C-alpha cells in the first residue's frame, strides 16, 4: 500500500521535489492526451468544413455571438481566479484558496448556465441533430453535420468543466482542513493546469464555431 508521511511525501519518492516534478509531468502528459482527444473532433470539423463551407456558414449564423463572447469573458475570468487560487496555495493561505476556488466554480457554473440557455434555443429552433432536425424548413442537409459537431464539441467541453468543478470541491474540502502549505500544494496546481486547458479549448471552439463562418463568401440568395 502506498503511504504518505507527515510532509505529504509518498513512500516511493525520494523527496518532495521529485514528487512534485512527477505530478507536474504527469499532468502535462495527461493534457497531451486531452489535446489528442479534442484533436479527433477538430480533425472531423476541419474535414467537414472543407467539404461543406456553405453549410458551415449557415450553421455558424444560427449561433449567438453575444452569448458566446459573454461565455469567453466568463471563462477567462475564471482562469484568473484559478491562477489566484494556485498562488494562494503556494503561500499556504488556505482561506484564500477556498475563496478563489469557490469563485472559479461560480464562474464555471455561469458558463454552463449560459450554455444551457443556448442549447435550449437550439432545441426550440429544431437544430438538435436527429429525426426532428429542421434547417430553414428543409429536412436533412449538411447543416445537420455542423450542429452535430457543435453539440459534440461544446458538450465534451462542458463535460470537462463539470469534472473540473468536481475537483474544485475536493480542493475546497482540503483547504478547509488547512492542508496546503508552501511545500505541499501540488493538487491545486494540477487542477489549475487542467482548468486553463479547458479554458484554452474554448478559446479555439469559440472562433471556429461562432465566428469563422460569418466572414465567409457573399451569402447565397434565398
Amino acid at each position, binding site marked *: *500500500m*502506498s*503511504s504518505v508521511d507527515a510532509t505529504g511525501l*509518498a*513512500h*516511493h*519518492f*525520494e523527496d518532495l521535489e*521529485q514528487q512534485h*516534478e*512527477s505530478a507536474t*509531468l*504527469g499532468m502535462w*502528459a*495527461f493534457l*497531451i*492526451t*486531452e489535446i*489528442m*482527444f*479534442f*484533436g*479527433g*473532433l477538430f*480533425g*472531423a470539423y476541419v*474535414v*467537414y468544413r472543407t*467539404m*461543406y463551407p456553405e*453549410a458551415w456558414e449557415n450553421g455558424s449564423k444560427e449561433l449567438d455571438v453575444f452569448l458566446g463572447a459573454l461565455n469567453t469573458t466568463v471563462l477567462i475570468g475564471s482562469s484568473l481566479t484559478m491562477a489566484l487560487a494556485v498562488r494562494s496555495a503556494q503561500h499556504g493561505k488556505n482561506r484564500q484558496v477556498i475563496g478563489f476556488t469557490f469563485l472559479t466554480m461560480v464562474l464555471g457554473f455561469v458558463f454552463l448556465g449560459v450554455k444551457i440557455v443556448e442549447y435550449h434555443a437550439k432545441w426550440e429552433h429544431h437544430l438538435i*441533430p*436527429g*429525426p426532428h432536425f429542421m434547417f430553414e424548413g428543409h429536412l*436533412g*442537409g*449538411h447543416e*445537420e*453535420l455542423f450542429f*452535430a*459537431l457543435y*453539440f*459534440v464539441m461544446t458538450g*465534451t467541453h462542458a463535460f470537462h468543466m463539470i469534472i473540473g468543478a468536481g475537483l474544485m470541491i475536493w480542493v475546497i474540502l482540503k483547504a478547509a482542513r488547512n492542508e496546503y502549505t508552501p511545500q505541499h500544494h501540488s493538487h491545486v496546481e494540477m487542477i489549475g493546469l487542467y482548468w486553463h486547458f479547458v479554458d484554452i479549448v474554448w478559446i479555439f471552439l469559440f472562433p471556429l464555431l461562432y465566428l469563422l463562418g460569418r466572414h465567409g463568401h457573399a451569402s447565397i440568395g434565398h
Partner: protein
Amino acid sequence: MSSTVAPHAAAPRPDLPATDGHAVEPRENYLNVDYGWKSWLLSTDHKRIAVMYLITIMFMILVGGSFAILLRLELATPAGDLLQSETYNKIFTMHGVVMVFFFLIPGIPAVLGNFLVPIMIGAKDLAFPKINLLSYYIFLAGITLTLIAVAMGGVDTGWTFYTPYSSTYANSQVALAAIAVFVTGFSSILTGLNFIVTVHKMRAPGMTWFRLPLFIWAQYATSLIIMLGTPVIAITVALVGLERLFHIGIFDPTYGGDPVLFQHMFWFYSHPAVYIMILPAMGVMSELVTAFSKKRVFGYHIMAFSTLAIAVIGFFVWGHHLFVSGQSTYAGVMFSVITMLVAVPSAIKVFNWVSTMYRGDVWLTTPMCFAIAFLGLFTVGGLTGIFLGAMGFDIHVHDTYFVVAHFHYVMVGGMVTAFFGGIHFWWPKMFGRMYPENMGRISAAIIFIGFNLTFFPQFILGYMGMPRRYHFYPEEWQVLNVLSTAGATLLGTGYLLPMIYLPWSLKFGKVASKNPWGAKGLEWQIDSPPTTFNFDKVPIVTEEAYAYPEGSRHQREAEVV
C-alpha cells in the same frame, strides 16, 4: 508502509515444499507480506497489480481463444453447418475485440511492464501507484461491459466497427461495445502516462537514458504511442456510439457524413496500436536474447533509436488500410512509401538480435526457444507486411486471408510468442519458483509448429482470393482450411500447456534463486520474489545494460537434470 505487515506473515507456510529435507522459511516478499482479498484488491504495489492483470488477461486469452477454436471448427467445412451466419459474425467480432483490446494491447505493458519497469530502473514503485490501481479497475470495467454486451446478444460489426454498418445498420450491441472500448482506452492511457513519468523521474542514481534496458525503451516508446493514439480511438468510438444512439449523422452519408472519415480516424489509432502490441514484445526479445547469449546487445544505440523510429513513423502509415477504400491516389502513394520506411527499423532489430547470438554462449532454455520462434514468425509477418504495403499488390489481397495470416504472424507469432517467452523468463522472479523446463521447451515447439500449420495455409488462401470474415466459402478451398483448423488444434494445445504447468509450478516448482539465469539487470539483483519495496536501499547504477564480462558462460543452475 505503516500497517501492512500482517500478523500471520511470519507464520510457517505449510504449502511450501521441503527442499533437501529442510523446511524453507522464505523471507518476507510482496506475495506473502499480507493475505486476504483486500490486501490484493486494494493493493497499490505495482507487482501485485501486475499479478492481477496477469490473471485477468489469462482469462481473456481463454475467452478469445475459445472463440478462435469455434471459428476454425466452423471453417473446416465450406458450408456454414456448425453456426448460423449471425452467430459466426458475432464470434469473429468478439474474438477480435477480446484479443486486441483485452490481451494484445495490455498484455506485455500491463503485466510485465507493471512488474518490471520500476524494478529495472531501480525505483520502489511506479510514479502514481493509485492511478495504476485505478487503471486496473477501469480495465476490469471494460471487460465487464464487453461481457455484458456478449451476454445481451453480442456484436457483429467486426472489431473494426466500420461505419455506416456499425452506426446505422447493425442489429447488435454496438453501443455497449463502443462504450467498453472507450472505457478500456482510459486504462491504457493511465498505464502509459504512469510509465512515461516513472521513466523520466524515478530512475535510480547512475541509471542514465543510455543505460536503460531496451525493455524500458520499448515500454517508453509504447507509452508515447498510447498517449497520442488512444484518445483518438476514444473519441472515434464515442462518435459511433452517439451516431447510433441519437442519429446525429457524423458518419452517415445521408447527411453528407463521410464513412471513410471513420476509417481514417479508426486507423490513426489502430495502426499505431499494432506497434503498441509489437514494441513491448521487441523489448522482451532484447532481454531474452542478451540473457541467454550472455552478451551485450549488438548495437545498443541503434536498437534504442529504432524503437523510437518505429513509434514515430508508425503514426504516419495508417492510410495503407485504405488503399481500396477511396482515398486519393497521392495520399495512397505517400502512405505506401512511409509504410516501406517503417519496415527498415524492424529489419535492423532482427539483424541485431541475430548478431547478438554471434559468438555468444547460447543456452536454449524455454524463453530462448520462444525468442527463436519469435525471430522466425515475426520475420514472416514483417516481410508479408512489405507485400501489403505495395499498393498494386494490396488491391488483390486486401481484406482476404492473406491479411489475416499477416497480422496473426505479427501479433500472435510476434507479440504472443514474446509474451510467453517473457512470462517464462521472469516467472522465477515473479513467483519465486521455477517452471518445468522441458515442458516449456515442448510447449514452445508445439506452438511454433501449430502456429505455422494454422496460419501459413491462410497466405495461400488469401492469394487465391478467399475474403476474410467469410462464413461460407467455395469448396475448392477446403483442403487448406482443414489444414488450418488442424493446426489450430495443435496451437491451442501448445498454449494450454503453460496454463497448466505454470500454476502447477507455484506449488511444486523448484524454489528459484535470485538469479537463476545468471542475467544482468537490476531485477536479478533482488530477491525472488521481491520485497514490497523491491530494493533494501536505492541501487546505484555504475554500468551499462547487459554488461556481461568477456568470456561469460552459463552456470545452468536452472537446468532440469
